[in-house]
């Protein structure tokens, strides 16, 4: 109970700071919007081919990739904010209070999740006039997946930030992870259209299964094996991410 209350205090503070300086959130949204407007139309003529006949709506293939990308990249770089707080002495000031270490992390992660979900909703709304058609249930479940994915990457990002305590170490590390994850998850184009070896390689990336799951949800195949596997993987990732995050926060704060 006390932990929830503390999480709420930390969340409120973080949210207030994000709202005071919304530039960052806007910039993070501009990237998927550019993909939507400048890349999305290219997919229209080839949608039937790349979805292997599952749909003719390009945005049912493309938007799921974009919101997963948003969930991943939007949350991946939140560690930089934590390093700024660390340098200012805020983390230390937090740690000397009796507040639960989990709350110190959870409040910040919750803020990131809220920002991501709002960004995703904006992205979806903008996509409707572009031609996106998808069932409500599938979209809502997809937003839950984005939220979980955001929580995962945000906690991992905070852990790495707390351990390295340096932007110089964090930046190359995150970029090094982000690039292969992006290419192997089929965010831009489904991996199914690739050669066999690339498909096998991409099977290793849990994110590919998540993207496939969200695509199935957008087509309305809520009970399909793709969407169930996607949900399974995202829940597993969330458990791992939050555990690692919580452990780091507890350990690094003695």
């Amino acid at each position, binding site marked *: 109970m006390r932990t929830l209350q503390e999480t709420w205090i930390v969340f409120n503070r973080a949210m207030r700071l994000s709202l005071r300086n919304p530039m960052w959130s806007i910039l993070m949204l501009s990237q998927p919007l550019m993909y939507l407007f400048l890349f999305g139309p290219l997919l229209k003529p080839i949608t039937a081919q790349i979805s292997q006949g599952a749909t003719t709506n390009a945005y049912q293939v493309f938007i799921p990739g974009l919101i997963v990308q948003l969930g991943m990249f939007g949350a991946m770089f939140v560690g930089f904010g934590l390093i700024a707080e660390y340098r200012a002495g805020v983390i230390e*000031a*937090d740690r000397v209070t*009796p507040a639960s270490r989990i709350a110190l992390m959870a409040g910040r992660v919750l803020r990131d999740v809220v920002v991501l979900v709002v960004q995703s909703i904006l992205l979806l709304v903008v996509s409707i006039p572009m031609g996106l058609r998808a069932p409500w249930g599938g979209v809502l479940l997809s937003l839950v997946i984005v939220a979980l994915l955001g929580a995962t990457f945000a906690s991992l990002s905070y852990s790495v930030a707390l351990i390295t305590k340096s932007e110089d170490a964090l930046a190359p590390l995150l970029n090094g992870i982000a690039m292969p994850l992006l290419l192997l998850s089929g965010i831009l184009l489904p991996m199914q259209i690739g050669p066999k070896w690339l498909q096998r390689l991409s099977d290793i990336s849990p994110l590919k299964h998540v993207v496939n799951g969200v695509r199935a949800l957008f087509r309305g195949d809520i009970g399909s094996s793709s969407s169930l596997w996607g949900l399974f993987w995202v829940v597993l990732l969330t458990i791992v991410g939050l555990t690692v995050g919580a452990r780091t926060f507890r350990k690094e704060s003695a």
Partner: protein
Amino acid sequence: MMIEARGLVRTFKTKRGQVQAVQGVDLNVADGEIVGFLGPNGAGKTTTMRMLATLIKPTSGSATVAGCDLAEDPVGVRRRIGYVPQSGSTLPEAIAGDEVVDHARLCGVSKKQAIADGQRMFDELDLPGLWRRQCKTLSGGQRRRLDIVMGLIHDPKLIFLDEPTTGLDPQARANLWEHIRGLRERGATIFLTTHYLDEADALCDRILVIDHGKIVASGNPEELKQQVSGDGVRLSLTDASQAPAASKIVAELDGAVAIETDGDVVAFRIPKGGSILPGLLRSIDAQGIELNGVEVRRPTLDDVFLTMTGRSLRDEDHAVPADEEAAA
């Protein structure tokens, strides 16, 4: 006892190998005391304080802080202490009052109480009208005082202050000293670090002198000064060529030590410097030596530090780089 520490040790791994920042510190702080940790940069002051404030774990040793065991019940310790770090505690972009209230609420203070206490402390610490200002718009001294409000907002019974007056102008320092004494009068115990001798002298009931991670002396400022062998006496001669003769007379005095001649000055240390002076002046006069001036100086804490460690507190070049301490 508010603090009881035994055998605290802390080692850090650095690129150059292991550094033992704190090498077995024992200390006691009684309820209601103001105790100062005096030592040069890198002596282990901050590291020891951070261990006592639950921010880093001791490599070995144990402590009871505010009645709670440091290892067994760190949350209990955190409930009872306030800590004002050296390096700030607020985000530049945040609003000063918001930072104070959020911090207080994490310490379990209600929002209403936090706002009332916070605004009162802003007035007391000379931060009027700054409640709704962004932290980065405050001056260095104002931010320092904001840190102090942050650390004290929940009215802790034990207060750790790490170099509280660094970066403050003389008036703000004097004001803060007053405030710290006021906190003690309200029943708080204060443990502070400082490398300012005048601060330790003016503020502390008791001083622990620390050097190279070890406590080398402790006592109240007067006791410590008495451990230094006597007062410093300086005789300035009119004629430098008479210095050897003057030095010879001084050497015959009972208890005179550290006799040094430098040009026309003869300096030495002797207990009760004031009372030997009349006799000394008569003998010097009888030898026909002419004096320009005489100076008797009570020992300072710097003399104490010099006697204990062989170095002046003012030489900073021997210090372990501060970033190693910060890396804790």
